[in-house]
């Protein structure tokens, strides 16, 4: 009976809370599955801080999207798949009325949501994480691995390294050091293909979760003595790797990390050891981006900032959060162009917007977001939209961009996605859309 009382109590409270915040007709709702605690909490705080700040910014600056106010509700997922589902289910009912795309910043949660979200017609954005073969929109209409996937990123990193080596990787040794999980394993196939084409020697070294001890791996690297280490880490694994590289005397400017291994959260704790370390990114850091400076002025000026610690404004992950929000808002704008300006958009409509994004440099400049994102053009058979990255380097105090936009080898990578998506469709017994008929 106690159980009943407990659940009755929770029910009463949740009903009270839910009904209290019922959404008015012309408000654009954003379900936000964020995480701010746990091992990756610091990363989540920056990212979702930026995300929410931009939504607020649009409200304050332009009074919403063409007059449609943005409202949102957050739910803490703790980077935990089961909690992510609970959060999704909790926010789902509201999201059925109108919704922005869901960003989870967690591959695990994204995976768990792919089928559900498609069923509920809620678009799922996976910017730089998640299920990469969802690039094939014919099989995954509601999932968008926007900007760049791991495979494209890995390929682009190799292209950068190749340029540095004066155009050839032949005979070089490259070690791929990765977090032994879905995240770290995804790019392996792409790397192996690249190794065949570019004739370099690839060594794979996995690191067990959480990766706070990498002595053995780095001794192995010392023994191999590679020309480069391509590095796919997350959380504490990043600092540890940088420190461990220092410990064996491996030069940090021969290390290139993925974009989840290239934020202030990764380099600052490593101290001086991080100097010279490079990583991929699709967004620049700093407040030089006009939009970021303006957000600080407008949102924090109005005392509505989401971050407790304002020093995070302008960090890589904060700016990435802003860029995720920019994409989401742009998708809604696009959708409004088709389905009616000044109206709240449903998930279905936003999905169309996301599939037909066309953000040029000119548009980015207009928003003040130059270099916050590469140009993006999505379509039914390309949910990625860009495939470009920049390389940045840590100078001891901040990230400095050291390259232009580099695109991965699309011709090599995208067929891999296609094949994988087809297999998925077969397993699930579904018929893909015909992309030729879309638009």
């Amino acid at each position, binding site marked *: 009976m106690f159980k009943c009382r407990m659940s009755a109590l929770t029910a009463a409270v949740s009903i009270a809370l839910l009904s209290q915040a019922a959404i008015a007709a012309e408000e654009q709702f954003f379900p936000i599955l964020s995480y701010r*605690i746990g091992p990756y909490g610091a990363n989540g705080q920056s990212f979702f801080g930026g995300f929410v700040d931009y939504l607020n910014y649009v409200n304050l600056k332009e009074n919403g999207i063409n007059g449609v106010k943005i409202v949102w509700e957050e739910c803490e997922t703790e980077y935990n798949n089961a909690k992510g589902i609970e959060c999704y289910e909790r926010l789902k009912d509201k999201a059925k009325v109108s919704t922005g795309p869901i960003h989870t910043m967690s591959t695990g949660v994204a995976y768990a949501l792919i089928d559900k979200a498609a069923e509920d017609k809620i678009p799922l954005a996976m910017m730089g994480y998640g299920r990469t073969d969802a690039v094939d929109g014919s099989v995954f209409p509601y999932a968008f691995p926007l900007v760049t996937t791991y495979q494209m990123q890995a390929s682009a990193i190799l292209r950068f390294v190749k340029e540095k080596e004066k155009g050839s990787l032949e005979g070089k040794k490259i070690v791929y050091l990765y977090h032994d999980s879905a995240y770290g394993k995804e790019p392996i196939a792409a790397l192996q293909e690249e190794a065949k084409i570019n004739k370099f020697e690839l060594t794979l070294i*996995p690191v*067990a979760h959480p990766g706070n*001890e990498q002595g*053995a791996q780095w001794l192995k690297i010392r023994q191999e003595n590679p020309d480069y280490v391509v590095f796919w880490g997350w959380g*504490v694994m990043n600092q540890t790797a940088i*420190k461990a590289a220092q410990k064996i005397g491996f030069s940090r400017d021969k290390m290139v990390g993925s974009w989840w291994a290239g934020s202030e959260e*990764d380099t600052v704790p490593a101290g001086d*050891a991080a100097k010279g370390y490079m990583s991929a990114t699709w967004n620049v850091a700093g407040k030089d981006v006009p939009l970021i400076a303006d957000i600080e002025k407008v949102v924090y000026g109005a005392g509505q900032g989401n971050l407790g610690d304002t020093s995070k404004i302008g960090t890589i992950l904060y700016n990435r959060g802003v860029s995720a929000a920019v994409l989401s808002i742009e998708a809604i704008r696009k959708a409004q162009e088709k389905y009616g300006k000044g109206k709240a958009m449903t998930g279905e409509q936003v999905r169309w917007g996301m599939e037909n994004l066309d953000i040029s440099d000119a548009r980015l400049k207009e928003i003040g977001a130059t270099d916050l994102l590469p140009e993006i053009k999505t379509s039914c058979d390309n949910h990625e939209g860009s495939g470009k990255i920049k390389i940045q380097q840590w100078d001891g105090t901040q990230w400095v961009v050291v390259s232009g936009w580099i695109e991965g080898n699309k011709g090599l990578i995208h067929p891999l996605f296609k094949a994988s998506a087809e297999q998925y469709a077969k397993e699930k017994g579904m018929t893909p859309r015909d992309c030729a008929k879309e638009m």
Partner: protein
Amino acid sequence: MQFFLEVLISGLLSGVMYALVALGFVLIYKASGVFNFAQGAMVYLAALAVVGCMEKGAPLWLAIILAFVIMTLFGIATEKFVLRKLVNQPPITLFMATIGLAFFIEGLAPIVFGSEPRALDLGIVDEPIPAILDAWDMVISKFDLVAAGIAALLVTTLALFFQYTRIGRALRAVADDHQAALSIGIPLQHIWAIVWGIAGFVALVAGLMWGARNGVQFALTFTALKALPVLIIGGFTSVPGAIAGGLIIGASEKLAEIYLPPVMQSMFGGNFGGIEGWFPYVLALFFLLVRPEGLFGEKHIDRV
């Protein structure tokens, strides 16, 4: 062979780091029979307290003293508000309470000191010592040697303290039998406050070392996971055992990570790296086969 030695030495040195965390477990278990799962969280709290105080402008030495005070107060508060109320409960209940305590710390510490990952600079660079590098082409880090020295000092002091002092004996007596200790006039509360204070100090040392090594952040709580197999091998109640266990785990885990995957690969195909997560536990199991109470642990005395 030379590479083997290098791996072995590096393993032994990282084993010392595990031992530092394991030591905190041993202390509390020895004196109160509580398997304190919050030790990892305490390491996190201690390291956070240091960097938190430094951010407020305190120099390193002052920050360390302040952190020590904080840890001691925290230990006393834990005793007063939690453990005292759970006297005579079964060990599993106490264990559970310490997991609750771990959550509590993980929530509280970032609120007070901030959750940003930060660097902790103790002024010892974690770089290979050039002389050794030149002479034998081996990388041995100065930082690791310092850590080893500190650990050795700490363990010796603690072992002597437990064996030969009045308080040390009382601590062991309390661990054996709360009631009897009470009956001969040992004030449990003081004893436990002392133990938690010492455990807090050990957590502080571990927090400083680990924090300087990997940065100060939430993941410091994971250090506990590395300490558990150390405990099994060394025995839950032995201070020197913690060091011995740490060395064994550290060395064997590194050697296994280097030499085992190629063997497995030739057997099954595929890449089998990343075995560090489970290898220490399986190794610990094999040790238990031979000695069910760890290498140095006290025998469980069973009289029916």
